[in-house]
C-alpha cells in the first residue's frame, strides 16, 4: 500500500463502515478512531445511515408462521436455556462463596469468537475503548521458564471490566479451561474462564473484581471447563499490583 497522505481520517470513515478499507488503511483508521471521539461519532452516524440501505432491497416473499416456528424451535432449550442457565447456576454457587462475583462475566465469555471482519473490527474497537479508558490499570501476570506464558490484564476500574490478553499460553485440554483469580488478603476470588487459541493467544473481556475488594494481584489456573470455586491447581501465571 503506498502511503497516501491525502486520505484524511474522515474520508476513510465511509469505507470503514462498509468494511471496504484495504487492511493497511483499516489499521491506520482504527488507530485514529481510538484517539478521536469525534471520529467515533462520525462512524456511529454513518453506521446508522448504512443500516437503512437494505430497506431499499426488494422484499422476499416468505412464510412467517413457518419461519417463526423454525426460529423458536432453534432457540427452545438450545440457547437461552442451555447456554445461560447452567453457567449462571455455576456463578450463583460462587456468589455465596465470594460475595459479589459479578454475573456479568457471562456476557464477556467468548467475546472474541470472531466470525467476520466487521465484527472483528467492532470488537477491536470495543476492546480499545476499554483499554484506553483513563481509569484502566495494567497488571502483568508472568511465569518463568524457557518460553513462559504471559498475560496482560487491562483493568477498567470505571467499567468494572477486565480485558485479558494472553500469549504463549497453550490451549487448555479438552474439558478444561483457564480461570482468572483476583487476589486479596484472604481466599482468591474467582473470575471468568477462558481458553486460548491453538497459537497460544487469548483476548477476552471479563468482569472485574468486586468493587469493594482491595485487589493485591491476580493469577490464572487450569480448571474444569465450568470453572471452580477455589483454585484446584497451581497458578500458570501470577502478578501483583504495583510491582513484579
Amino acid at each position: 500500500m503506498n502511503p497516501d497522505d491525502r486520505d484524511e481520517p474522515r474520508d476513510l470513515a465511509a469505507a470503514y463502515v462498509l468494511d471496504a478499507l484495504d487492511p493497511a488503511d483499516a489499521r491506520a483508521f482504527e488507530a485514529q478512531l481510538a484517539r478521536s471521539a469525534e471520529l467515533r461519532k462520525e462512524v456511529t452516524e454513518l453506521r446508522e445511515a448504512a443500516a437503512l440501505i437494505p430497506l431499499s432491497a426488494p422484499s422476499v416473499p416468505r412464510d412467517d408462521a413457518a419461519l417463526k416456528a423454525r426460529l423458536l424451535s432453534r432457540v427452545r432449550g438450545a440457547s437461552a436455556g442451555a447456554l445461560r442457565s447452567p453457567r449462571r447456576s455455576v456463578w450463583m454457587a460462587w456468589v455465596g462463596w465470594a460475595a459479589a462475583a459479578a454475573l456479568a462475566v457471562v456476557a464477556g465469555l467468548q467475546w472474541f469468537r470472531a466470525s467476520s471482519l466487521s465484527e472483528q473490527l467492532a470488537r477491536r474497537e470495543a476492546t480499545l475503548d476499554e483499554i484506553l479508558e483513563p481509569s484502566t490499570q495494567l497488571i502483568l501476570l508472568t511465569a518463568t521458564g524457557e518460553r513462559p506464558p504471559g498475560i496482560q490484564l487491562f483493568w477498567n476500574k470505571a467499567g468494572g471490566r477486565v480485558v485479558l490478553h494472553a500469549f504463549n499460553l497453550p490451549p487448555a485440554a479438552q474439558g478444561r479451561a483457564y480461570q482468572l483469580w483476583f487476589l486479596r488478603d484472604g481466599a482468591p476470588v474467582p473470575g471468568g474462564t477462558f481458553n486460548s487459541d491453538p497459537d497460544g493467544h487469548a483476548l477476552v473481556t471479563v468482569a472485574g473484581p468486586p468493587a469493594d475488594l482491595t485487589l493485591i494481584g491476580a493469577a490464572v489456573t487450569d480448571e474444569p471447563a465450568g470453572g471452580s470455586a477455589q483454585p484446584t491447581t497451581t497458578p500458570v501465571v501470577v502478578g501483583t499490583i504495583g510491582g513484579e
Partner: protein
Amino acid sequence: MSDSWRRVALASSLEDVDSTVGEIISRVQAGDQAALAELYDRYADTLLALAYRILRDRAEAEDVLLEVLERAWREADRFDPERGSVRVWLTVMVRSRALDLLRVRRRRERVAAEAARSGDEGVGFRGTAGDASELEDLRRHVVTALQELPPAQREAIELAYYGGLSQSEIAARLSLPLGTVKTRMRDGLQKLRVVLRPIHAGQAL
C-alpha cells in the same frame, strides 16, 4: 407534501418501527420468547431482503435470518445501545454472515465477478402485501435517496455493501483508479447520511 415535512413524518414512522425496541431487547435478555417473535416481526422483512440481495438464494437467506436472530437471542446481553441501534446490530450481523457465505461460495465456484455483478440491476423495489404502510414509506424514502445518488457513487456503495468488495477490488473490477473509488464511496455515503439523518436521528435508541 413538502420534503422537510415529509422527513418529519418519516422520522416519526421509523420511530414507530424502532421505538420500544429497547424494551423488547430487555425481554429477550430475560429469555422471553414472545419478545423474540416481536423482534422477528419488526426486522425480518428487511433482514431477509438484505440476505437475499447478497446471496440470491431464498433458502440460504432464510437460514441467515434465523441464524442471526438465534444469535441475537443468545447474545442479547452483548447488545450495547451506545454503539448503535438494534437495527444496526442486526443488519451488521446479517450482512456479515451473508457475505461470509457469499465468499465461501465464490471461492467454491470461482466466479467472483458474476456474484457481485448480479446485484447490478439498479435499485429494485417491491413490497409484500403484508407490509406495514409506515415501513413502505420508509423504504420509498431510502430507495429515492439511493436513486438520487450519482450512479457511479451508488455503484461503489452497492458493490461494497452487497458485494463485500474492498475499495481495491472495486477499483480493479471497474478499471478505475483507487482514488476515484475512494472519493465515490465517501461522497455517496456522506450524501446518504445527510438525506437519511432526519430518519435515523429520530430513532429511539
